[in-house]
């Protein structure tokens, strides 16, 4: 079972440096930005200001009939929906990588899942901001507890909760596992949020993705440009963030290894220092012994020196002088005799 298979350090699944995908990242970013820019320009120039898909008939909002001023805010649609779709797509990949992490226990997938969640959060926040502008200027309120808004808001809370969970766990192996589980559980809300406009027809949010959307080409083309542009940007952002996170993780790993080696080294140094001290002590003992030997040339054993150190120089010298013949015996007898003296 999974219990006895520790998390492997990143292996084959780790992002390849300088590979084809890596080189494509920059191109994708440029392409995405370009497409989105065309989308924005098209939105404000070529896209007609007629009744958009959002409001097919004039409606009374906040006491005023919908006018061109209100329809201008419909331009948010061309960015809002692509960003929202991108957030779902990136989160799908986050959940996919989380599942693959649980299957393989390869830390590279945890890294990818986490990175994708970070990008998801960025896109969700962007969607919330653009969506909030939409609710304010199209519906006349800052916030409604409407099913789509509610489920999407919950999605944001779940992604934030994911990062709080990540910070609350210290053990990297356990953190990776729990976060992967929570990522999968959190992702369940994404299809709910996506499908809610179909499940609850009373929702003010229109069903955008359908074959009979009725968008005229002049509106459909910029929308699609924005959609693909945003997906390219999402891909490039995920890739770039992955590169940064991989570097950060590598730095962490190196730091850990460095610390380990440092610990080894300092331990070795401590051992060496200990040895030196021991040697020094031995030398000091020998040095102590030397004057004793000088005082009484007969006292040749170390036992005499120890006795001398224990009793004090004055006593010992006299003792040595008196019991010099006993010196060849064990130190204990020598000590006794010196005390007697």
């Amino acid at each position, binding site marked *: 079972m999974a219990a006895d298979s520790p998390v492997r350090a990143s292996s084959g699944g780790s992002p390849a440096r300088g590979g084809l995908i890596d080189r494509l990242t920059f191109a994708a970013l440029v392409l995405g930005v370009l497409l989105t820019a065309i989308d924005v320009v098209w939105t404000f120039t070529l896209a007609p200001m007629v009744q958009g898909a959002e409001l097919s008939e004039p409606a009374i909002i906040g006491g005023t009939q919908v006018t061109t001023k209100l329809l201008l805010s419909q331009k948010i649609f061309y960015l809002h929906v692509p960003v929202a779709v991108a957030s779902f797509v990136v989160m799908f990949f986050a959940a996919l990588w989380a599942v693959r992490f649980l299957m393989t226990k390869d830390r590279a997938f945890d890294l990818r899942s986490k990175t994708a969640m970070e990008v998801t959060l960025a896109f969700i926040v962007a969607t919330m901001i653009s969506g909030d502008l939409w609710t304010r200027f199209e519906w006349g309120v800052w916030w409604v507890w409407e099913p789509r808004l509610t*489920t999407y808001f*919950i999605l944001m809370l779940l992604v934030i909760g994911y990062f709080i*969970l990540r910070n*609350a766990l210290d053990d990297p192996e356990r953190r990776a596992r729990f976060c992967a589980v929570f990522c*999968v*559980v959190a992702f*369940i809300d994404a299809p709910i949020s996506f499908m809610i406009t179909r499940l609850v027809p009373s929702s003010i949010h229109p069903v955008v993705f359908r074959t009979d959307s009725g968008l005229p080409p002049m509106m459909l083309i910029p929308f699609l440009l924005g959609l693909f542009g945003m997906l390219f940007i999402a891909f490039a952002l995920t890739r770039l963030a992955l590169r940064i996170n991989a570097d950060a993780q590598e730095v962490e790993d190196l730091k850990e290894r460095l610390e380990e080696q440092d610990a080894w080294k300092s331990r070795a140094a401590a051992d060496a220092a200990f040895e030196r001290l021991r040697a020094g002590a031995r030398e000091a003992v020998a040095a102590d012994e030397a004057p004793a030997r000088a005082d009484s040339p007969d006292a040749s054993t170390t036992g005499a020196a120890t006795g001398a150190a224990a009793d004090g120089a004055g006593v010992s010298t006299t003792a040595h002088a008196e019991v010099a013949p006993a010196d060849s015996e064990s130190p204990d007898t020598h000590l006794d005799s010196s005390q007697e003296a």
Partner: protein
Amino acid sequence: MAQDSKPGTMRVSSWRQYRALLLKDLRQEVRTREMLTSMVVYALLVLTIYGAALAQVGDRVEVVSFAGGLLWALIIFTSLLGLNRSFSHETESGCLEGILLAPVDRAVVFLAKATSNLIFLALVELITVPLFFLFFLSGAELASTTPMMLLPLVVGTIGVAGVGTLLSTMTIDTRGRDVLLAILFIPVVFPLLYACVSATSVALMGVEGTFGTFWTSLALAGAYDVIMIAAAWGLYEFVVDA
């Protein structure tokens, strides 16, 4: 973790493992009464706060129209407290390690824990829901369809117990686990809450022609239960072995 089915080895059936684990939880609760007392007292306190919050409302406003929401807020907060406690004695006395050392399928551990949580939640609801009616709806005219609110109550409690068991297992060893469980639990359980509140409100109001919403909400809550419990069941083995 598949059990050995080698010939000659005594194979304990999953049902017996499940029963043993469940009985252990129940016995522990009967002896300590830790979870039930704290949950009931907490629910009473929430009801008291409702009393203060609605003090100026009086009988004029139809409390019935938002009673479903109030009742579900009570259930969610109370179960949050209970779920936080449900694993505390498991870790305190090293009981979880013992269970995990035994050759028991992780899914069985999950089911037993979820069942015991469900039983405790149901017991608490048995006390608090009548109290809620007594305190806030005794003066109101109840619709004849009021007993139908038991359906979302059952479906909702099952979902809360299932998801809560998974999440509370995840948060036992974290820093600041009480807050973390709330942060994870409330958003995850939100769709269920939403569906149950609308179903309960329809049942309490009993307006003709709104029962389509009741059944749709109930179906949504049921679907949520099935999906979430299946997910929790499948993912539980990744959460417990450490």
